[in-house]
């Protein structure tokens, strides 16, 4: 993994000073609380996943401007103080169907590269409010992987400038989803078997290399020529092997979504540079399943953890990370797995997933380490705007709303 080095301290200090002065002049008094110019973080989740010391995070135009070491700064109404808290990049649920309305699979054809899940997107969906309360600021929504080529993913934010309750689209041309395993075999259309599926996939990719101008083929051409990311949904270890040997060799960035255990393939996956998406973890799972994330990341595989909201609740993402750590995953890697690695799998790591200058100011204020389930979400910022505050939310539910 590579990280952009943080801006030298001196530059950031100057930049911060200008930011504070410039935006201070323009900000309206009533907005100052919701859109601060700086956030004082007691501790913060650093880009390497570890928990770093006190920092001042300055914000500008919805982006992170600078990360300054602890220094005396002028007391200002436009600065949000979280001296006892841990500031974390907004959590990303990399396997979600949040805001996707209706059936996201085209059942007549098994090869649908033209499908785009964004067409089913409903911005004003209550899932987003629950997500924000849980510290999830972005989600990758994928078409249901019940087809050989199921369509394109989208990446959405769970809130934004327009409304605190509505999602906004970050990217509508996300990775192309390929389905492997029994879910794609149907009796009423091809493929009907594992070997049939693999044969069909090979011929589909070969066909797309030709001179066809059909829009259906454009995305497959991009995959075959290594210009598009692919997300491969697998059912068991056998599917993972097949996925790596077919699309896995071609696509630009590959992530593998795997629903059961894959211990025995750890080395093979590590050699392929593919990102593994593991989870969600529940209290009912076996020791072997729960230790998958730890085993994979221990073998050098980049792991992203998924919460699968709204099939699971908003808690599931952090619960998955917590359980993964209890079953052997390194805590820093677990923090990356629900932030930066998830952003990488979604192809948006240039925008979100880490607290670095230039990144979107999507920040979650936790009362403690986000991996600890007794830590609480105190506030959530998306694009530099506070979209959730625990204090304000305290009694909102008392009326009986969910």
């Amino acid at each position, binding site marked *: 993994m590579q990280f952009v080095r943080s801006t030298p301290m001196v530059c950031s200090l100057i930049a911060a000073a200008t930011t504070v002065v410039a935006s201070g002049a323009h900000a309206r008094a009533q907005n100052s609380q919701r859109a601060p110019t700086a956030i004082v973080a007691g501790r913060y989740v650093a880009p390497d996943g570890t928990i770093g010391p006190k920092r001042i995070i300055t914000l500008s135009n919805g982006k992170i401007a600078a990360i300054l070491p602890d220094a005396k700064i002028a007391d200002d109404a436009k600065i949000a103080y979280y001296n006892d808290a841990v500031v974390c990049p907004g959590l990303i649920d990399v396997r979600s169907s949040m805001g996707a309305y209706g059936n996201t699979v085209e059942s007549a054809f098994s090869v649908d590269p033209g499908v785009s899940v964004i067409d089913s997107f409903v911005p004003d969906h209550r899932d987003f409010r629950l997500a924000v309360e849980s510290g999830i600021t972005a989600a990758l929504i994928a078409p249901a992987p019940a087809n050989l080529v199921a369509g394109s993913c989208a990446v959405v934010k769970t809130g934004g400038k327009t409304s605190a309750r509505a999602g906004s689209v970050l990217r509508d041309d996300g990775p192309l989803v390929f389905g492997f395993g029994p879910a794609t075999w149907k009796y009423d259309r091809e493929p009907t078997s594992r070997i049939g599926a693999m044969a069909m996939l090979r011929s589909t990719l070969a066909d797309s290399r030709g001179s066809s101008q059909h829009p259906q083929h454009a995305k497959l051409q991009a995959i075959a020529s290594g210009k598009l990311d692919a997300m491969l949904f697998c059912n068991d270890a056998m599917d993972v092997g097949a996925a790596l040997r077919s699309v896995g060799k071609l696509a630009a960035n590959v992530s593998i979504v795997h629903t059961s255990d894959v211990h025995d393939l750890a080395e093979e996956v590590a050699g392929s540079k593919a990102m593994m998406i593991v989870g969600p973890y*529940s*209290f*009912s*799972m076996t*020791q072997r399943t729960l230790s998958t994330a730890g085993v994979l990341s221990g073998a050098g595989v980049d792991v992203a953890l998924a919460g699968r909201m*709204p*099939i*699971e*609740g*908003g*808690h*599931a993402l952090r*619960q998955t*990370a*917590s*359980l993964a*750590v*209890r079953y052997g995953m390194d*805590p820093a890697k677990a923090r990356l797995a629900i932030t930066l690695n998830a952003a990488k799998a979604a192809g948006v790591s240039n925008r979100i997933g880490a607290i670095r200058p230039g990144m979107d100011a999507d920040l979650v204020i936790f*009362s*403690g*380490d986000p*991996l*600890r*389930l*007794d*830590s*609480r979400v105190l506030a959530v910022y998306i694009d530099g705007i506070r979209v959730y505050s*625990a204090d304000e939310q*305290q*009694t909102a*539910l*008392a009326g*009986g709303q*969910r």
Partner: protein
Amino acid sequence: MHLLAMKTRHFTFSMAGGLLRRRYVRLFAIAFFVALHVAPAHGQLLERATVITDARIMTGSGLVIEKGSIIIKGGKIEAVGATAKAPFLSKKVAGAGKTVTPGLIDVWSTLGRTGGASDGKATSRAQDGFDRYARNDFREALRHGVTTIYIGADGGAGINGTAAIIQLAPGAGKSAGIVREKDAALCVNFGSDRSPIARIKTFAAIRKQFQSAIDYRESLEDYDEDLKEYVKKLEELRNKEDGDKKGDESPKDEKSTDDKTPAPDPGDDEKEDGDKEEEKEDGDGKHTSLRSFFAPGSEKTPLAEDGSDDDKQGDSGKDGDNNGDEKKDEDELKKPAKPAFDAVSHVILKSIDHEFPVRIEAHRSDGILNALALADEFNLDIVIEGATEAYLVADALATSEVPVVLGQVGRTAVFEDTEFRRHTTRNAELLTSAGVRWMIGSGGHDPTAARFIAFNSQLATSNGYKKSFNGSTQYAWLYKLTGDASRFLSMSRRIGRIEQGMEADLVIWSGDPGDPSSIVERVFVGGKLAYLAPQLSEGGS
């Protein structure tokens, strides 16, 4: 022991044989004898204590001892604190850098439960469905610090039986689990998942069972009165007859055939019976007048077969004899018929007499309100289990001071048509602010979830749980699973806290127990090492 002493004597006889020697041997034998007798007590004195040294101790009552020792002896905590000194020759467990907490208590569990659902009778006992050989499951639970579980008698809608409290101590052979309480609560399910009409029917049926238990008691009391009246009249008659002619044998005959019939002073007889009952079943003496009329079989546990069969036989015998006597001697006087023994009502009456609470699984607000009405009508101590929509009726719960037990906080809410459709992870938070007492367990549906009650409690308390644990809200989750849980289960004198005299159910964590990267290194249950982390056993520590 006598045999042993004799043998010794014989042996020495053959060696030598003088009188002096014989006396010597006798002395030796006596010494040997005395030694044998003293041995058990002596062994206890010499039993090596286990000492956990220099650990951070979270006592389970809110207190944190930053650096202290715990001395375990005879299955109990002998001393705890910064100044506790290790006795001579004690086994030491290095606790520096580690945290010790009480064993966690799952107040709503299904761990080790087998044999399917209850048959829907109050006389069913959850302990009978507990599989004490489910060692892998117990090991997983111990691995996450769980040492005590409450398992309910689960079944369909209705009254399902009594719950058990089980300590996951190593048992005989390869078993585990010691039943600490066989009747911890009466388990009732309101069947929230069913249609409104089915639910109303269920509620009516449950209500009827409580009512019939009360009617049963009244009929026993009536019988009591009638019998007294009968005895009184019989006495009068006898006195009258005695006046007429002495030496009539008939009352004597009757006494020999039935020990429950008139003695010269029936009041005294009853009292004695009652006393015997009280001696046999401690804390059971609340309705001795009722119990005193049971056939001998009912003095055992009120299992349906035992009690009712014995009783029926007794009754039929009585009826036959009495009828004969009456026809012969007293035309007007008729012995009152004893009501048939009703084992189910006896269990229900115990809950009405507050011997144990009634746990009602209800998820929807209507079911919870029904439960409150039931509690009000029969003056019951109830606990609402599940309580998915408790936050909607929090004020009613607070007013009636009814506690709730919550299950999995992270339940998915996606299925719109179930009783969980209004589930929110903030239930606990809203109940707290309304002043409702809540507890948290693993939920009554997933045996494997018991191991994760710490995570579950953290999820529940993290949402702004305001009550402090040693001044910080951070360890509220731990308090809920230790000190508070044992109090809730009426076990607070035995478990749930690290204090002198409490049972040594202790968990040694490698670091902070709330940090998922901490592991459980050792678990003691009842002073015995019940779990040792594989990492430690490989290293040979």
